[in-house]
């Protein structure tokens, strides 16, 4: 009907015309004159316009047509006030866009289900939040491969069980016979992994349980779709290609479907290797047959009809049985105690596991709150602007009501205008969100020069629905009250000439309340921004114990050399590299180490004779080169550092941190020269002599409590190092190329990667705090800006209404400054009330985020005062402009303006 409206009208017109002509003809035949026949015919007929409309309305599309009418009228009237429309669109776009961007991250990191079959049925044993390897009894998150095999056979509640190595390997390998080795991200999984997850191959086949039954003779791999496209350019013959890792050549047997990444959100492996081949891949783990090499996560798919509680019960019973039944289980009192206390919870795997969640779920939630508040402020602004506009349009509405429009019709039209504004703002917001997402991903990944985390934050349906919901919500929020107000017009009053006072009192209390609300919310956001910024500054000034500027860092992969780590040639190679680099111009020291900062840890307990043994104390062990302390400029407080006299055969030595010397050794005695055991049992092979004490350092993160650290030299605890640090002076790039040349002069095949500075790595560890601080500062400024627009708008309106009164005052002798003060008084009252309302809300809000602050409490008075002052300044300025305008009013003009 809509489409054929023209045709319908024409045909109807023709019918009506015929009728009128025939009637006219009949009247003329009855004897009337031509003109009176004409008139009579029309009189008998009735009002053709109404009839046409009724005929058309009978078809029932009326509502849609009036809606389209409203839309086009709304667009026209919005275009007629471009300033308001632009401000409204920008504030809405930023508000909705910010919300959408943050929500897309929340969705990707915390809410989205894994792209596998029926993710709700999957669970993982334990909390799923550990990675590494442990041999302690009572470990409920990490399990050994033999445990998995027994568990798979004996359990009654899972239809499929699989296991995956918790540590992600990142060695270098060779594709086919290419010259260059490439770094590859590898996940080591059981043969049942893909079938448990229900993954169908995009090409070839996935692993089966057979690929995992015997160690070492299943050199097959499955590659990811993304890697297939990237490294093989999507070659359809990829199943004929091979990958060489270590000494073993693997055949590619399948490709996973696009979008599949396993179970760790934010981690995209390039290929999967079966557990049976774990020894062939660096780091050549021998955990396949080791009952207590506990490094794997176990996941399972619940049988239909089995409840969580039933499964948990069965799992715990099996857990105790399997461990105690291991032939080499050391069931002494210590271990038994831990075993008995162990309880294995089952954690749902529907949204996968993610290291990102640990770091970012709180910041993301806070940012979501921040952006929601900004959106509220923007809505308040738009509501105020619309209220002002509707007062100006009072006359238009009066006329329409006088002509017969019902109030509902007017409200519907105003709501449609709000909806158009909101939808346009929403579209703009989606655009902002797409840009912001890319920016945010870069920020979360730790900067623009870092690799972006493989997180999919592109637009999807859930995101668009969220935006739609936000848009309609904001439209209703800022549109409904102005719509109700505008349509409640007294027809006769408004149509009278002049400014009746009838509609004046109704607008301003609401407008003032909105502005007060904006000021309060801005205070909350500004204080939050201050708190986070100061937290960040505190963090960056933490004394790490080592001098972190002027140190180059890089990683090598020593596995490609093909030697075992305790081979004297390997140990000599590291020494030689260190010496060659130290001889370079501009280099003040070079050293390898297992860990520099935030690289993981190797923990253990220590047994100090003479002091009580406390198993709860974890000491972090670090294997280092001789010049470690010189390179990092960590002060040596007593004794000496390692040197050439500490070899594989000399007596075993260690250097301890100062807090370890103070707390773990008997008081009052110099620890240098004393012995202790690295481990729980006093075995001769764990006995070391303390030869030095060094200052405490930060080991894993800037805000960690003080940690105990001890150091051992590489020859006595051989480890295939990867990490190298070089202290230098001068130009970074010059030194960097010199260092790389020096390394290659010792061994040409060593791959070098992750060339950066120690300072950059330290900075990377506070990425989420930096993210929150930067974004909350940005949104705080935005909030203040929007609020000042709100204040300016409201005060301009009030001033314009009081033009008359001001004119009279000035004519009676008031000075300009009196008039200014008259207006400013209102502004000050508004702002003060806003701040007073905002302070308790702020204190409440800050107490919610106190866990994220460092070095200051939530109710920090300095931040509060600074924020109040900043807000006052900006808001007073915003209110001053209309006040100044008011004082410039020419009395004669004002008086004439009736």
């Amino acid at each position: 009907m809509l489409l054929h409206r023209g045709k319908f009208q024409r045909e109807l017109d023709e019918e009506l015309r015929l009728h009128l002509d025939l009637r006219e003809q009949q009247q003329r035949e009855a004897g009337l004159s031509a003109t009176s026949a004409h008139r009579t015919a029309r009189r008998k007929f009735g009002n053709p316009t109404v009839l046409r409309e009724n005929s058309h309305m009978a078809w029932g599309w009326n509502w849609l047509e009036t809606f389209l009418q409203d839309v086009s009228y709304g667009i026209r009237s919005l275009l007629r006030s471009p300033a308001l429309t632009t401000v409204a669109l920008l504030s809405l776009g930023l508000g909705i866009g910010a919300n959408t961007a943050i929500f897309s991250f929340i969705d990707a990191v915390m809410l989205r289900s894994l792209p596998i079959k029926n993710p709700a049925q999957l669970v993982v044993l334990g909390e799923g939040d550990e990675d590494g390897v442990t041999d302690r009894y009572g470990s409920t998150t990490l399990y050994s491969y033999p445990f998995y095999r027994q568990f798979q056979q004996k359990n009654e509640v899972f239809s499929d069980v699989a296991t995956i190595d918790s540590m992600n390997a990142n060695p270098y390998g060779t594709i086919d016979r290419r010259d260059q080795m490439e770094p590859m991200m590898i996940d080591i999984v059981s043969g049942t992994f893909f079938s448990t997850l229900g993954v169908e191959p995009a090409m070839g086949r996935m692993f089966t349980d057979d690929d995992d039954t015997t160690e070492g003779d299943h050199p097959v791999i499955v590659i990811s779709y993304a890697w297939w496209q990237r490294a093989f350019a999507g070659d359809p013959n990829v199943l004929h290609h091979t990958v060489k890792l270590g000494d073993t050549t693997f055949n590619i047997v399948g490709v996973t479907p696009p979008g599949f990444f396993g179970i760790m959100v934010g981690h995209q492996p390039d290929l999967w290797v079966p557990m049976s081949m774990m020894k062939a891949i660096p780091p050549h783990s021998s955990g396949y047959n080791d009952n207590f090499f506990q490094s794997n996560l176990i996941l399972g798919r619940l049988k239909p009809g089995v409840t969580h509680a039933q499964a948990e019960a069965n799992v715990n019973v099996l857990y105790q049985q399997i461990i105690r039944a291991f032939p080499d289980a050391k069931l002494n009192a210590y271990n038994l105690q831990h075993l008995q206390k162990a309880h294995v919870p089952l954690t749902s795997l529907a949204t996968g596991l993610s290291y990102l969640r640990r770091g970012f779920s709180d910041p993301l939630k806070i940012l979501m709150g921040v952006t929601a508040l900004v959106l509220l402020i923007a809505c308040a602004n738009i509501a105020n602007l619309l209220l002002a506009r509707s007062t100006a349009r009072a006359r238009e509405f009066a006329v329409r009501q006088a002509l017969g429009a019902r109030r509902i019709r007017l409200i519907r039209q105003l709501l449609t205008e709000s909806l158009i504004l909101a939808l346009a703002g929403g579209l703009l917001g989606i655009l902002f969100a797409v840009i912001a997402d890319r920016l945010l991903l870069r920020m979360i990944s730790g900067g623009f020069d870092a690799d972006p985390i493989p997180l999919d934050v592109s637009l999807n349906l859930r995101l668009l629905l969220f935006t739609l919901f936000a848009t309609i919500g904001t439209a209703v929020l800022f549109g409904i009250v102005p719509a109700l107000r505008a349509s409640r017009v007294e027809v006769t009053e408004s149509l009278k000439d002049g400014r009746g006072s009838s509609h004046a009192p109704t607008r301003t209390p609401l407008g003032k309340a909105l502005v007060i609300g904006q000021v309060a919310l801005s205070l909350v956001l500004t204080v939050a921004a201050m708190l986070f910024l100061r937290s960040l500054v505190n963090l960056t000034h933490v004394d790490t114990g080592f001098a972190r500027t002027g140190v180059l860092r890089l990683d090598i992969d020593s596995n490609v050399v093909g030697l075992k780590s305790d081979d004297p040639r390997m140990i000599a190679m590291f020494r030689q590299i260190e010496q060659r680099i130290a001889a370079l111009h501009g280099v003040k020291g070079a050293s390898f180490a297992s860990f520099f900062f935030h690289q993981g840890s190797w923990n253990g307990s220590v047994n100090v004779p003479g002091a009580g043994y406390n198993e709860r104390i974890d000491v972090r062990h670090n294997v280092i080169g001789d010049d470690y302390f010189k390179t990092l400029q960590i002060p040596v407080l007593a004794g000496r550092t390692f040197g050439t006299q500490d070899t594989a055969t000399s007596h075993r030595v260690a250097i301890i941190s100062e807090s370890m010397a103070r707390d773990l050794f008997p008081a009052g005695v110099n620890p240098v020269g004393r012995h202790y055991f690295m481990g729980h049992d006093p075995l001769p092979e764990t006995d070391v002599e303390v030869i030095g004490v060094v200052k405490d350092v930060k080991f894993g993160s800037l805000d960690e409590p003080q940690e105990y650290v001890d150091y051992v030299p590489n020859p006595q605890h051989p480890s295939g190092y990867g990490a190298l640090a070089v202290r230098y002076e001068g130009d970074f790039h010059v030194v960097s190329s010199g260092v790389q040349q020096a390394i290659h002069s010792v061994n040409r095949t060593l791959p070098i990667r992750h060339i950066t500075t120690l300072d950059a790595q330290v900075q990377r560890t506070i990425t989420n705090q930096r993210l929150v601080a930067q974004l909350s500062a940005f949104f705080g400024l935005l909030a203040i800006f929007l609020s000042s627009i709100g204040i300016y708008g409201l005060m301009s309106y009030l001033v314009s209404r009081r033009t008359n009164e001001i004119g009279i005052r000035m004519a009676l002798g008031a000075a300009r400054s009196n008039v200014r003060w008259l207006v400013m008084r209102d502004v000050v009252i508004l702002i003060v009330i806003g701040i007073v309302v905002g302070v308790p809300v702020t204190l409440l809000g800050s107490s919610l985020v106190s866990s994220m602050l460092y070095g200051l409490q939530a109710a920090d008075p300095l931040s509060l005062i600074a924020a109040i002052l900043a807000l006052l300044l900006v808001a007073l300025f915003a209110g001053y402009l209309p006040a100044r305008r008011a004082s410039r009013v020419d009395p004669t003009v004002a008086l004439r303006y009736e």
Partner: protein
Amino acid sequence: MAALVNRSSSPTEDRDEIPPGTLYLLILKTIAVRGRLHGYEIAESIQQNSDEVLQVEEGSLYPALQRMLLKGWVTAEWGVTAGNRRARYYTLTPDGHKQLHLEVSQFQRVMGAIGRIIQTA
């Protein structure tokens, strides 16, 4: 059913209102009797067959006809009048016939009841 009634405008014409709700009935019956009519003919027919007692405001026929088209009681097609003018002719559908029977019986029921009350008074 909105039947706008024409209040008599000239002293010589003295028409009565049609009771509300009977416009459809009149149109249906008129078309049923004559088979195929256009709008003007329907109006004339009602006027004449009522011996000039009933006069419907002629324009109100057209919205009513549109509604009847929507409800499927009549169909319309373009044809040519005797005077060689294009006109839209309406005919009843089987649904229309059914509706006519319904309305007639309802009308007779109501009128019968009213008549009984009047007679007893």
